[in-house]
């Protein structure tokens, strides 16, 4: 066989390299998939045990408001009503998103449209700094500044959804802002030029063209912020008061799914109803973050700019 033919038939060095690279990346991705699947399986098997092994009614789990898994009620059924935690989690999440969004959009408009120079130089680093602060620091500030301030102004103990909202507002603000900035920057320059050419003022351009075009991106940012707020445990736990009660106003102690989980998991015995009930809360959290992810995808698909 002549050497050229041999060289052609043999797999080249770069082909082997590529093969190896493919294998390595396949290995990595399958490892990640296995880990995710294992987490899902574990949380689901534990969380569903509450309903299958302990015979708790799913509807009463979602709709009853007494959380005391160790104690049975008058009919001998365990009291696992997760409604207070569900309400608490959604309450702080939506409120903090509602408060944070206008600030984030305002800051982003300033950074991209009004004064990009100053935005890049000063605001960008500040926002990035906020992302890097650990949540326990936010919680500590919340406990020593926000809670006493709320107590001073509104009375009560100061612990509650309002304090949680304030802390989460600061925590999700950088996420929402930086994603909004990206969305605004992605709006093609000719949109603005066209608007200005038609005689639109700067305000009209920003409000009716740029914001409109960037809307899907902004919404994605908001949902991302909400996902972060929903999953945040430590900082919220420190300021919300951790009472498994349906909050009757914004300054009465409440609790979130995460705060009950973190404070309870070490005190329960694996396999007992108390423990299974906590896993059910974890499953609920997992499903919610899945829902947030789906919403983000849906927004992304729905809002693709058509050219």
């Amino acid at each position, binding site marked *: 066989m002549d050497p050229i033919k041999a060289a052609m038939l043999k797999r080249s060095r770069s082909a082997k390299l590529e093969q190896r690279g493919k294998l390595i990346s396949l290995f990595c991705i399958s490892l990640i998939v296995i880990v995710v699947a294992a987490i899902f399986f574990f949380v689901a098997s534990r969380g569903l045990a509450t309903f299958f092994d302990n015979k708790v009614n799913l509807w009463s789990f979602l709709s009853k408001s007494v959380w005391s898994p160790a104690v049975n009620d008058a009919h001998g059924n365990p009291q696992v009503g997760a409604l207070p935690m569900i309400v608490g989690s959604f309450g702080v999440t939506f409120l903090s998103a509602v408060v944070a969004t206008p600030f984030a959009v305002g800051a982003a408009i300033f950074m991209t449209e009004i004064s990009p120079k100053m935005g890049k130089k000063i605001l960008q680093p500040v926002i990035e700094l906020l992302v890097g602060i650990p949540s326990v620091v936010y919680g500590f500030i919340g406990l020593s500044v926000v809670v006493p301030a709320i107590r001073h102004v509104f009375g009560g103990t100061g612990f509650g959804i309002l304090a949680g909202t304030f802390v989460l507002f600061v925590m999700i603000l950088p996420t929402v802002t930086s994603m909004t900035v990206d969305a605004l920057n992605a709006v093609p320059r000719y949109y603005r030029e066209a608007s200005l050419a038609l005689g639109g003022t700067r305000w009209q351009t920003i409000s009716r063209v740029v914001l409109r075009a960037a809307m899907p991106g902004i919404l994605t940012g908001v949902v991302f912020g909400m996902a972060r707020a929903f999953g945040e445990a430590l900082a919220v736990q420190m300021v919300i008061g951790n009472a498994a009660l349906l909050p009757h106003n914004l300054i009465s102690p409440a609790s979130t799914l995460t705060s009950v989980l973190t404070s309870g998991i070490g005190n329960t*015995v694996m396999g007992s109803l108390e423990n299974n009930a906590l896993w059910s809360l974890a499953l609920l959290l997992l499903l919610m973050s899945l829902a947030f992810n789906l919403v983000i995808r849906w927004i992304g698909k729905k809002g693709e700019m058509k050219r």
Partner: protein
Amino acid sequence: MKKRHLLFLALAGLLALAGCGTSQSSGEAITAVGSSALQPLVEAAAEQYQTDHVGVFINVQGGGTGTGLSQIQQGAVEIGNSDLFAEEKAGINAKKLVDHRVAVVGITPIANKAVGVKNLTVVQLRRLFTGEITNWKQVGGKDLPVVVVNRAQGSGTRATFERWVLGDRQPMPAQEQDSTGMVRSIVASTPGAVSYVAFSYVDSSVRALALSGVKPTDQNVTTNDWPIWSYEHMYTKGQPHGLTKQFLAYIQSAKTQQRLVSKMGYIPITAMKVTRDAKGNVIDKQGEKSNGSN
């Protein structure tokens, strides 16, 4: 070439680490897991024991009473630390576990300093925590709403407090905190707040309440005049042997009990003039049986 070097270094590092692990366990290693209230004592005792006995390794972890009991039940660790009798915890088969009592912890109600109350009866205290008393003026204090702060459900401190104060009554749902330090700082800063902590956590920022004139002191716990106390248990699965046995004997020895245990703010088991079983029966150490549960 550079990448190869890095890879090699990383591998060498891993090997060295693995080597470390084996050299430590070449002596003997045990793990104690559980109650965060007991953790500081076990840690301190383990540290002392390790300096006296070269080559042994005692790994102490927190995680809570529930974790300690379930881990020891599964046999995953050598010692499970608990604030409660294993019989008191749901889901635990206490017959398989052997109890080693290493210390006693007294628990006292604490209140914010502004409430204007220093002394309560047990009934008044019970009503505070069940929500029947909602203002401090109902128990002779200032006109301040009562703010109850609980420990997390399942906490050993909470279980002990509720057992000896509430009896079979249910507490009202209220704020919950998962650490004693947090409870103390909230009680210190919230007007009208009331909660309960172990004796060693009481400081000048809060006020410890007396019960019907009996002050929360170690002395009163040893005679059971102060009823809110609990043993700190170290459970083993079956009878302990080897290092586990030696370490438990070390903690229970008169020397450790007198020096370390009282220094760390616990009450030595040797100082107790009474014993109490899981059902709450109190027995004088002379053998004469005194009043039963509550």
